[in-house]
C-alpha cells in the first residue's frame, strides 16, 4: 500500500501567478513524458521484472514519481492561483480556463487529456527497461525546455530539481538493465 506524507519532496513556493507558465508546465503533469505517465509506467511494469533489484527500482522510482506528480501539480496550482481572467486571456490560456477554470487537470500544454497510450507494459523486461531509459531522457529534455521558457527563479528552482532526478533515475535504470541482461544470459547457458 502507499502512505501519504503531508509535505512536498522539494519546496514549491511561487509568489507570482503566471498562467502562461502554468500552461507550459501542465504537460509534466499529464503529458506523454510527464510524471503521471512515468509513475504508472514503472508501477505497472514492476510485476514482470525477473530479479529483486529490478522490482525494487521500478517500485521505488515509480513511488518517487508520484511525489514529483504532486510537485508539478502544486506548481500549476500556484501559478494559476490569483491570476485574473484578463491575465489568463493575455497568456492565451483561455481555452484551458473554459474547460477547467484554475483547476489542475492532467493534460498536455495544448489540451490533450492524459491517456495510458503514453506508456507500455510489455511483459518483456528488456523492452520495458529500454522504454524507461528513454522516458527519463525525454523527461529531462522536457524539463530543460521548460527551464528555457521560465524566467522566474521560484519556477526554475523546482524545475532544476526535477530535471536532476531524471538523470539519477536514468543511471539506476541503466544498472538494472545490465543486471537483468546478465541474469537472462546466465539462464540461457546453464
Amino acid at each position, binding site marked *: *500500500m502507499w*502512505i*501519504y*506524507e*503531508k*509535505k*512536498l*519532496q*522539494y*519546496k*514549491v*513556493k*511561487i*509568489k507570482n501567478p503566471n498562467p502562461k507558465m502554468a500552461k507550459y508546465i501542465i504537460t509534466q503533469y499529464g503529458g506523454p513524458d510527464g510524471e503521471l505517465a512515468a509513475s504508472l509506467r514503472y508501477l505497472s511494469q514492476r510485476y514482470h521484472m525477473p530479479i*529483486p*533489484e529490478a522490482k*525494487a*527500482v521500478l517500485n*521505488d*522510482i515509480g513511488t*518517487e514519481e508520484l511525489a514529483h506528480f*504532486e510537485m508539478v*501539480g*502544486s506548481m500549476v*496550482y*500556484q501559478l494559476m492561483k490569483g491570476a485574473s481572467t484578463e491575465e489568463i486571456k493575455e497568456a492565451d490560456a483561455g481555452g484551458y480556463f473554459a474547460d477547467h477554470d484554475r483547476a489542475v487537470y492532467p493534460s498536455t500544454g495544448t489540451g490533450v487529456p492524459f491517456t495510458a497510450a503514453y506508456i507500455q507494459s510489455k511483459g518483456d523486461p528488456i523492452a520495458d527497461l529500454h522504454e524507461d531509459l528513454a522516458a527519463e531522457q525525454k523527461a529531462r529534455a522536457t524539463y530543460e525546455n521548460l527551464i528555457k521558457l521560465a524566467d522566474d527563479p521560484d519556477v526554475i528552482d523546482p524545475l532544476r530539481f526535477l530535471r536532476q532526478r531524471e538523470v*539519477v*533515475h536514468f543511471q*539506476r535504470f541503466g*544498472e*538494472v538493465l545490465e*543486471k537483468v541482461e546478465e541474469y537472462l544470459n546466465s539462464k540461457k547457458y546453464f
Partner: protein
Amino acid sequence: MNVRQELLNQIRAIEFMTVELNLYLDTHPCDMRALKEYNMYTQQLMTLKAQYERQYGPLSNFGTALNQGMSWRWIEEPWPWEQDHWMEGCENVDL
C-alpha cells in the same frame, strides 16, 4: 524563515539523502558503506519527524504517526501545495 519552515527544510534535506541511498542500494544491495549511511540518515530523519509532528501535527496517517492533541490534527491546514506560500511571514504559527 520561520521555525516550522526551517525544520521542514531539514527533514527534506535528510529525506533526500535516504531516497538517494535507497535507490542506490536497490542496485548495490551489498555496499556496506551505503547501508551504514542509510541507517544513519534514517535515524536522523525519524528524530526530526517526531520533533515536527509533536509541534505541527502528523506528517503521515493510516496509523503511521500518533495523533498528539485533543482533535484530529490530520485535517489541519495548510496542505503541502499551499503550505510554503501561506507560511510566508507567519512567525507565530506554532500550534
